[in-house]
């Protein structure tokens, strides 16, 4: 009995190690598998063009997912990201296309970027106050703008598709830096700043503490309200940037479609990246990886002629798998 038992112990610890490895590197493994499958079955996968398309599409998901990761780290959720994208995206052409904007192209362009972002941050402030001061549950509080934000955007544009031609603005979505899409670099830079924020600053420590145990954090002097309001502002700000990028890519603003279902992609990317929905963890680069995986799954199905509807089901499958892995990791 006593001879046999150490072997049992060893076996089970090996099993645990294997699981925790899968938990830690599962995202990378999934990415590798996806790439391999694509190389094997998707026509023309190893082309620069494929890379460009994927980077320019994944960037917006990644940018929003970083913001979402910070919100989730405090134990919250933000459903309004897609609507905020639509709002910011609708405002920009209105500003650089206005009489003032056309008369002063440089100032007009700057305002066309700055003002929508300010509007986005105002949305974040609204969410943050609803949640931390009025103590409305995040899912309900952000549902308000989820519904009304897109409505406001459509009212602003009279519900029409607005096309424009403004090469300087379009650089946000079509420019190249070192041969790769500008927004790809932007997403990486944003993730790097967010990573620095989380790991090196007091603000980052505070937001993890709030997500980890709000009451304990408060009694240790963490300004819980301020921390919560700030993450919703950051998340809305990043959504605003994503909204501008989408409009720049299309050279058109479509308030009905800009950022549609983005909240689900962003939450999925954050969860696949390792964020815990109960808070306390902010794997920023994980969110980036998560966004890439979601994008690649979409692309794989699309490039192989499978309908969008099926892609949605596949996305759900990924989330389930990610959550299952997380459960394993928590033990």
């Amino acid at each position: 009995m006593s001879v046999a038992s150490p072997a049992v112990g060893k076996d089970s610890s090996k099993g645990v190690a294997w699981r925790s490895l899968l938990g830690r590197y599962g995202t990378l493994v999934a990415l590798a598998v996806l790439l391999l499958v694509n190389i094997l079955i998707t026509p023309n996968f190893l082309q620069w063009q494929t890379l460009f398309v994927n980077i320019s599409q994944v960037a917006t998901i990644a940018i929003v997912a970083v913001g979402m990761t910070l919100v989730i780290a405090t134990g919250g959720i933000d459903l309004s990201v897609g609507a905020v994208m639509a709002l910011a995206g609708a405002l920009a052409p209105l500003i650089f296309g206005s009489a003032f904007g056309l008369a002063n192209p440089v100032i007009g362009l700057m305002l066309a970027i700055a003002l929508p972002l300010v509007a986005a941050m105002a949305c974040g402030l609204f969410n943050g106050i609803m949640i931390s001061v009025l103590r409305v549950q995040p899912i309900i509080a952000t549902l308000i703008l989820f519904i009304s934000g897109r409505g406001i955007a459509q009212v602003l544009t009279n519900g029409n598709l607005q096309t424009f031609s403004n090469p300087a603005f379009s650089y946000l979505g079509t420019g190249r830096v070192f041969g790769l899409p500008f927004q790809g670099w932007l997403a990486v830079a944003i993730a790097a700043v967010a990573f620095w924020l989380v790991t090196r600053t007091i603000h980052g420590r505070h937001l993890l503490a709030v997500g980890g145990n709000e009451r304990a954090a408060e009694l240790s002097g963490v300004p819980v309200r301020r921390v919560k309001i700030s993450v919703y502002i950051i998340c809305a700000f990043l959504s605003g940037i994503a909204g501008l990028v989408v409009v720049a890519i299309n050279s058109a603003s479509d308030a009905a479609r800009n950022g549609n279902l983005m909240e689900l992609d962003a939450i999925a990317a954050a969860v696949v990246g390792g964020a815990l929905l109960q808070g306390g963890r902010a794997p920023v680069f994980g969110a980036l990886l998560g966004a890439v995986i979601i994008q690649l799954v979409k692309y794989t199905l699309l490039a192989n002629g499978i309908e969008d509807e099926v892609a949605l089901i596949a996305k759900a499958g990924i989330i389930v798998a990610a959550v299952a892995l997380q459960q394993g990791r928590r033990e």
Partner: protein
Amino acid sequence: MRGIAKSFAGAVALDGASLTVGPGEVHGLIGQNGAGKSTLIKILTGVYMRDAGEVNFAGRPLRVASPREAQAAGISTIYQELTLVPLRSVTENVILGYEPRTRLGLINWRAAHAKTRRILTDFGIDVDVHAPLGEYSTAIQQLVAIARAVSLEAQLVIMDEPTSSLDEREVAVLFSVVNRLRAAGTSVLYVSHFLDELFTVCDRVTIMRDGATIADHAIGDTDKTSLIAEMLGRDVSEIQAAGMTELGGGSNTAGELVFEAKGVATNRRLRSLDLAVCSGEIVGLGGLLGSGRTEAARAIFGADSLSAGTLEFAGNSAPPTTPAAAIASGIGFLTEDRKAEGIIPDMSVRENLTLALLPALTRHGRIDRARERELVEQFIKSLGIKLNDMDQPIRELSGGNQQKVLLARWLAIHPKLLILDEPTRGVDVGAKFEIQAIIREHVEEGVGVLLISSEFEELVEGADHIVVMQDGVSVSRMSNPGITEEALISAIARAPGADVQQGVS
């Protein structure tokens, strides 16, 4: 249970543990945190599988793979952490999983309510069984949990720290239940940090240390000091020389006034608090559960806003309105509920320790990580915190070590006033002495301490002054030397308002 061994990922939790409980026997199980009591129990109840050893139950080998199987075999358990559903009714909690059925297979609610009422009446608990459990106090919830376990008609009932959130009257109720179980031939395994309780209810006691069983006595053959000696692995004489607490009240020389509360009230059960703490002294706050001690601490710390009265701090008379402001003006508050209001379980020991100090470690929003590590290193050493790595999550530490980390969180801010709410609750005797010695050391260096404790011994021997609270009012103040446990108890129990004039100083 004999020769039980169990390791977790290479760390040995149990090696050579044994336990024998006779029929109808109340058996105490004691040991420091980390001695392996919980692991042993979890093996017995099927939560963990053992690596080696054998378990016999009622004369037959027992091999259970889940708590449910253990329950079916006649072993039921009341865990330290409550495992109930607060939003469901009392009845649902008691019968959960064992609902009486009607012929159609539906739950027979009439029978269920009646059964629950009968069980609870046996316990002397009078509650509305239809009401959500969460509406009742923790103590009632604890008794309901016990009632549930007993109602499963087990042959062995395991109680893990059953009295830690009960008041005296409820403890008496619990003891009568234990006695009734014994009379009915049910065995009880009783795990507790309160040694006095063992002498009241237990027949035998098993002592564990470092994952092994050290001794097994009939309770009449031993005394408190020898039990402590066996738990700690020290000599009896050594313990006697050290005394029962390390706080050393009455011997401190008080410095200047740190803070004073006059007629302080809040909307949370605090009606009128008069209290002063000087530097270099320990002021105890005594009173029953719910007398407003914790509420007093929250008011001083700025966690609850004042509805009346004034708080004055040395040099700065504006009372803090938030915990952050309180910390900035040099107040620390070690909370009573370590899990809910103390640790951030998934954060590392390092991050937990520096949480309150963080603003001082930060320049332009950036944390000075080198200084942070250095500081944490110092505290781990000086407080003797046992861990593998300062970056390991705090939840992996034993209760006593978690408590030391939280104490370090407050010592790190160099407090002028340190509020300690039950600083040694739920930690083992060894850690208790160490924590008391640390507090003592800082009091000698001039920290003013406000000590809330339900252990009379800790207050009587530890505090320089004791302020007694009743119903949210500070009713009397006593000074050491000269306080006796009897005097404190009578001050706590005296009818409120009987002699207010003499009392308030």
